């Protein structure tokens, strides 16, 4: 249907879309999860917060599941290398994610305050650890990952868990958490009432400027202190997916090359810098829906910035740059990409359609009256 080169590009776009879908939707319910023990002062307030995401978090989480599944199917080598290389980090993410489904579902089934408080902290952990680790992971990928491929294309990762925790990646980790909290706090402004809403507004007003600051610092750091990767040989963009057929060099400032080449892409970081401020402004004027939309657009801008900086690289190798995975040589075969493209073209619009319908049906704020009515059936 499409030629191989186009398919490879399509899947870079689609995986970006899935990741953006994840940070926008699962982003707000994770943000809410982080805020539960912080701004939910009473059991009723915490229940309001949980019930504002109750009908949606399950579907939201599928963006993450699908993003991982799509990386497996479209970039199998990347999935294999990243998941096994970041073994401990991935396991910690997984354990944190364990807490959420059970936490949401079991928390309100027993009245005992100790039971509920324990689950609140479980949900907090499950919602706070993943964004930090995702940030740390992106921070490391931007600096290059220490892996090499042997003659059978088996990836050998030669770093440890503690190496992942370097200053730059920790900065990106904190930044990522801020973005999720921003997303959660604007959601709560839009979906709750009274005290919770007021506190969520305050959180937005604190976190939004921090997010902008961290994004700017990370950007400057990337431009000045972190070397990028450049393909120095010819590469057959429609050729077989074998990452050993090219040569790559590390060059200072290379992560900015795409912005010089295509100035229009500068819009992505600009959006990432501007929209958290718009969310702040909207919160000041109590425009909560506008704040949430601005925050969502900010997520979009930030992730796109990360993708564009590295394009066409997906997983650069710091040990042997020529072994780096790129959009052109780490994908699945043409047949597979074609099949999946057709499936995505049919089902992604459907997903957006019924997801919107579900949000539309559950429209409205969750307040005290909701809890009084559904005390026994709600989360």
């Amino acid at each position: 249907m499409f030629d191989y080169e186009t398919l490879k590009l399509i899947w870079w776009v689609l995986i970006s879309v899935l990741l953006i879908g994840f940070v926008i939707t699962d982003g707000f319910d994770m943000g809410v999860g982080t805020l539960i023990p912080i701004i939910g002062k009473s059991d009723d307030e915490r229940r309001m917060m949980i019930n504002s995401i109750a009908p949606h978090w399950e579907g939201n989480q599928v963006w993450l599941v699908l993003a991982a599944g799509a990386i497996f199917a479209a970039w199998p080598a990347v999935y294999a290398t990243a998941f096994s290389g970041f073994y401990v980090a991935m396991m910690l993410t997984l354990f944190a994610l364990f807490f959420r489904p059970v936490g949401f579902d079991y928390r309100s089934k027993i009245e005992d305050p100790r039971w509920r408080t324990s689950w609140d902290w479980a949900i907090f952990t499950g919602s706070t650890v993943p964004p930090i680790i995702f940030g740390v992971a992106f921070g490391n990928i931007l600096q290059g990952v220490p892996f090499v491929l042997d003659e059978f294309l088996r990836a050998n990762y030669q770093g440890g868990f503690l190496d992942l925790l370097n200053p730059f990646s920790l900065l990106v980790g904190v930044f990522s958490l801020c973005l999720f909290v921003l997303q959660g706090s604007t959601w709560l402004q839009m979906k709750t009432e009274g005290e919770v809403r007021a506190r969520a507004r305050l959180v937005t007003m604190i976190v939004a400027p921090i997010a902008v600051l961290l994004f700017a610092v990370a950007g400057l750091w990337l431009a000045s202190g972190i070397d990028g990767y450049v393909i120095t040989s010819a590469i057959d963009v429609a050729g077989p997916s074998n990452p050993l057929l090219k040569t790559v060099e590390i060059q200072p400032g290379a992560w900015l090359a795409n912005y010089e080449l295509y100035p229009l892409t500068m819009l992505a970081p600009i959006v990432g810098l501007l929209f958290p401020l718009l969310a702040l402004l909207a919160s000041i004027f109590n425009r909560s829906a506008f704040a949430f939309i601005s925050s969502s657009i900010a997520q979009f801008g930030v992730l796109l910035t990360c993708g564009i900086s590295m394009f066409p690289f997906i997983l650069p190798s710091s040990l042997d740059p020529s072994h780096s995975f790129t959009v052109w040589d780490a994908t699945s075969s043409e047949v597979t990409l074609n099949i999946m493209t057709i499936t995505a073209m049919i089902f992604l619009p459907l997903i957006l359609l019924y997801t919107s319908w579900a949000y539309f049906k559950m429209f409205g704020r969750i307040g005290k009256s909701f809890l009084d009515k559904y005390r026994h059936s709600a989360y």
Partner: protein
Amino acid sequence: MDDLVDLSRFQFAMTAMYHFLFVPLTLGLAWILLIMESLYVMTKKEVYKDMTKFWGKLFAINFALGVTTGLTMEFQFGTNWAYYSHYVGDVFGAPLAIEGMMAFFLESTFVGLFFFGWDRLSKLQHLAATFLVALGSSMSALWILVANAWMQNPVGAEFNYETMRMEMTSFAEVVFNPVAQVKFVHTVASGYVAGAMFVLAISSYYLLKGRDMAFAKRSFAIAAAFGTAGILCTILLGDESGYEVGDVQKAKLAAIESEWETHPAPAAFTMIGIPNQEEQRTDYAVRIPYALGIIATRSLDKEVKGLKELMDVHEVRIRSGMIAYGLLEKLRAGDETPENIKAFEEIKVDLGYGLLVKRYAPDVIDATEQQIQMAVDDSIPRVAPMFWSFRIMVGSGIAMLFIFLFAFYQSACNKIGSNKTFLKICLYSLPLPWIAIEAGWFVAEYGRQPWAIAEILPTHMGISSVSVEQVWFSIISIASFYTVLLVIELFLMFKFARLGPSSLKTGKYHFEQLENQIEPQLEVKQESK
């Protein structure tokens, strides 16, 4: 090195079997909820709405853990089976990604509306949401089983030496894999049985206690009918029929039957015996003439291959695979002459067999006769565990068949609850579907050994380059988490199952009636009019 393989296998087996404690109940209960809610929409009787909501509560407790443990499965291919993921991701990953787009999204989005949309949706809209949850969960099973069936019988793909991996040649072949079809029906139907047994057993408990009779009888009847259909499908469309395609499936069948020799058709079925791997025979075998031939090949004239003959075939293919491996090394080294390519393409189907030797001789081509023989001995699964777990599965299945038939008969004659002993049998049979299902998966996956992907990638090749300590770390952590979660889940499950529909706080059911000092029998009399 072997240690790492065993640990990785152990972790995978542990997490997969644990995951499948929750999946079957989701599969079955979702449709039972749909039946109950359909009855509510058609008859407008509140009791059916209460039934949907109450069993939905138990569904939710189970569903949460199904989702939780499913995440592990998705992570684990990458974390612990990285070379596997690289080697077959092109084929194996696609059904998983499609599952996400087509099924899991549907299920997860509408499950939210199922729980929280009762007052937000019209009756029909809510019914549609319930339907989409049930449809989504079964479709999800379809795609997962397409992926799994490809591991058992890898069709529609071939090895590409340029990318050093399997690549898809025909998506249609992958989807319409005969193993996938039988597996889908068998697995999904067994899930329906689990759902039905769950409702049947807990309803029997209420009937035994004489509580909420109208509610319990209706639940019992629905479970009896649904379970009867489910168990008939599971047994009649048992996936033994998928065991005649593909070499590994054949070895599995022979191992299940502890059939060492190839007998003239139609083969006898070894009902019971003691498999003896060292001597390659079955001691004290009791055989039923013709039965295996009929079960396995659905005919009287096709023979079932014995393990010894299969091993002879394996030896030939291992030797050919070693040559293929040598040619592949030449091609990888850049010696891409047309002759080499042609020679490799001709025998590359045996490459996987060559890789079996890699466990004993890392360079493969220089393997000694003794090493080859070790690989040949490895090329069939251990017989005794296969033989016994298969019989546990079949035994549980037949027991459930009788239970459901009798329960169905009772419902049809309006005699539900008339026989206390039978109610007790129903209650204590609750674990049967899980025993059968876990045993069945054990047969399917353990029986696939030594392969990760049948005839293509040996299990020992599939692992990640991680350290033994790392895998110990994950095994211990996961096992601890899972134990705690299981305790909590069972605690809630028992609490709410004991509480019954009173947990809905509608004021209509047993415990609330007691509180209000109203004769509990009153409700039953009213309902039975």
